[in-house]
């Protein structure tokens, strides 16, 4: 058998394996995309197979839609804060449980009880978002039956007759939701970063310690550069979470598919779903979907580009 034939046989073999997943991918991922793109130029109601072609009307309307623009702004805000806060906290905690202990004769170690912390930090990740929304619903509950309000009332910080309506305050609601996402995410990224930190050879740390580096210096000069790949991946993941937010917003805030009070917690996915399923403007909603897709793509490329660095292998 010639080399060429052998190679062809190999490729045929590989292609055989790839065919099924590729077909599935085309049918269930690419084809809906194409369909959505098509629908975004129609006035499809979502409940009937008939519709008219309306050109770019939906996109023109989208530009003027204040609710959608507000939602977009909220998504961008979350896009900045969700990864930033989560990664900073996760890095800090991971560093503390892995290399934050006093560098005694035993070399590099975490703070006391770090094994225990690692397990505890991971707990929130085990909960599904649905449970999370119930849990935090009870925490943010707007009367004194809420955990926060009950606590603050008993501390005498707030008056029982005027409890803080956490999720019904335009200035608070988004931050309250942000806290939930961060609380949920930190544990996972802590474990991720821990794993990455543990693969860093101890002798690098020891060398740094011998040279007289403090905790902060060790972190910024040694740990962070060696962890950069993980941080970058986390930023993309968290960015995705920030672009979505659908489950939390739709279940925890007021309004059909959430977004309340008065659109102050609106994200793109909630506006999309309301138009798609409730207002019967599915063509319009598809236009939103296309915009969301385009934005997510652009933002991911930017994230990967902006965080590109020289990589260090060890």
């Amino acid at each position: 058998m010639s080399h060429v034939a052998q190679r062809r046989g190999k490729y045929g073999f590989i292609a055989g394996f790839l065919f099924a997943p590729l077909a599935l991918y085309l049918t269930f991922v690419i084809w809906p995309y194409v369909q959505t793109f098509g629908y975004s130029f129609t006035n499809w109601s979502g409940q009937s197979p008939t519709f008219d072609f309306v050109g770019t009307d939906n996109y023109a309307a989208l530009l003027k839609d204040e609710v959608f623009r507000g939602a977009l702004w909220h998504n961008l805000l979350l896009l900045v804060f969700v990864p930033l806060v989560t990664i900073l906290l996760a890095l800090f905690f991971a560093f503390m449980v892995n290399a934050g202990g006093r560098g005694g004769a035993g070399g590099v170690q975490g703070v006391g009880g770090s094994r225990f912390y690692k397990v505890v930090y991971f707990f929130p990740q085990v909960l599904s978002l649905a449970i999370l929304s119930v849990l935090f619903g009870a925490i943010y509950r707007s009367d004194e039956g809420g955990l926060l309000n009950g606590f603050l009332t008993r501390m005498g910080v707030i008056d029982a007759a005027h409890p803080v309506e956490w999720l019904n305050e335009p200035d608070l609601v988004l931050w309250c939701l942000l806290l939930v996402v961060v609380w949920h995410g930190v544990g996972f990224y802590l474990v991720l970063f821990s794993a990455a930190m543990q693969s860093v050879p101890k002798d690098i740390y020891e060398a740094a310690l011998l040279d007289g580096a403090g905790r902060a210096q060790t972190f910024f000069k040694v740990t962070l550069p060696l962890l950069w790949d993980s941080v970058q991946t986390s930023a993309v993941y968290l960015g995705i979470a920030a672009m979505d937010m659908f489950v939390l917003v739709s279940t925890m805030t007021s309004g059909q598919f959430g977004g309340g009070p008065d659109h102050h917690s609106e994200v793109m996915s909630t506006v999309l779903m309301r138009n798609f399923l409730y207002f019967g403007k599915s063509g319009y909603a598809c236009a939103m979907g296309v915009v969301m897709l385009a934005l997510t793509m652009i933002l991911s490329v930017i994230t990967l580009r902006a965080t590109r660095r020289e990589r260090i292998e060890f």
Partner: protein
Amino acid sequence: MGSTGEGLGRRDLIKRSAALGLITVPTMSFLSACASGGAENSTKGPAKAAVTKENPFGVAKGGKLDVVVFKGGFGDDYAKAWEAAFDKKWGTTSSHLGTQEITAKLQPRFNGGNPPDVVDDSGAQQIKLDVLAKGDQLADLTAVLDSPSLDDPTKKVRDTLVEGAYEQGLQGGKFVVLKYVYAVFGFWYSGKLFKEKGWAPPKTWDEFLAVCAKAKEAGIGGLAHQGKFPYYINVVIMDLIAKKGGLDAMKAIDNLEPNAFEGNPAALAAVEAVYEVVEKGLLMPGTNGLTHTESQTAWNQYKAAFIPSGSWLENEQLKQTPEDFDMKFLPMPLLADSKLPFEAIRAGVDEPFIVPEKAANKAAGFEFLRSMLSREWSTIFAQQANSLTVVKDGVDPSVKLRPGTQSAVEALKAAGGNTFSYRYPDWYSEMDTEIQNASNELMAQRIQPKEWIKRAQAAVNKAAQDPNAKNNKRS
């Protein structure tokens, strides 16, 4: 050993393609939700039997019947009992689905052209009726109305229905929805609490505020409302408008008139009256952020004197209501110079049953609805779901009612012909949502009554551009 990222290494390639794959994940779930089912299913031609007086739609014996009901506050036992009765009479095999996910389960079927034969399209995830009607997905049910009643064949089904059942089933001028449950709307209070405190049920808004003030003194909230769902406080605002301004004020809103809210003194007075409750601090603390179950349960725990709701409240709160609570219904108290009497109440029909236009066994679907409007099936519903139906005197007198339902029935009797109901929530979902948002802001004291009026009018003006606005007119 160090290496720099010159060119595209194998690891980089894998990492990047993985990342690019990832970004598609969140958008994908939404986009794929947008895809419709494609081709229509046009194979079935349902067998038909001869049309007779007993079988006005020509139901074929031994056919299939596909029923989907919303399994919410009323459960779905009543529907199972109905289906058993139907199968027995017509020899059909019925399939039953009780679900809360109406949209998720049915949207693909509507899009694919193979919907069920009967649907109870209700609940938070209902498929909006205006949307279905616009897409010509609803069968015209006029034939059911004109068929002979099962109880008295000399009467047409149409004549056995309560007032409003016909009008509220119209979409674009066609009767396409049978709303089966009859509900009255107003405030609710605990007979026990009022007796204990010596409070009289108020008839005017001033008396209402006075009771709220007394409640506050006693350490109880005055008015509780289901803040997370401003639908309920809108009932209060809209009913005050209707009672003060008369039926014309109500119709002006449904007909999207340019002065429905703006320049309508009744509307401003109503909104100001509700706002007075907020301003005087007579709301139950925190009620603005509570869900319907949270606020209703707090009310059941005597933390508030009043709560607005429809007559499904008693059934919904069965488990949370203390045995001796003595739930009572109160018609909306009157503002000064009201055009309608105190007894007037919003009486609505709800729980929309539809027969899809493309149903495989439309005849059986029609016959099913006709049977629902018999006294026998209506009594089954009252027993299983603890609620009244649109069939006039449709409940066997031997069924004993709970106190709340009993007081609602009495209020309904006292109201006589003085019942009214709004259509705009069914006709214009977007307008309804916008007014609800404004009400939420009003209750949180973030906007003033004048601003509410402005926003509500803006919502009306926007709805007037809806293509459906031409067909949805009431007089």
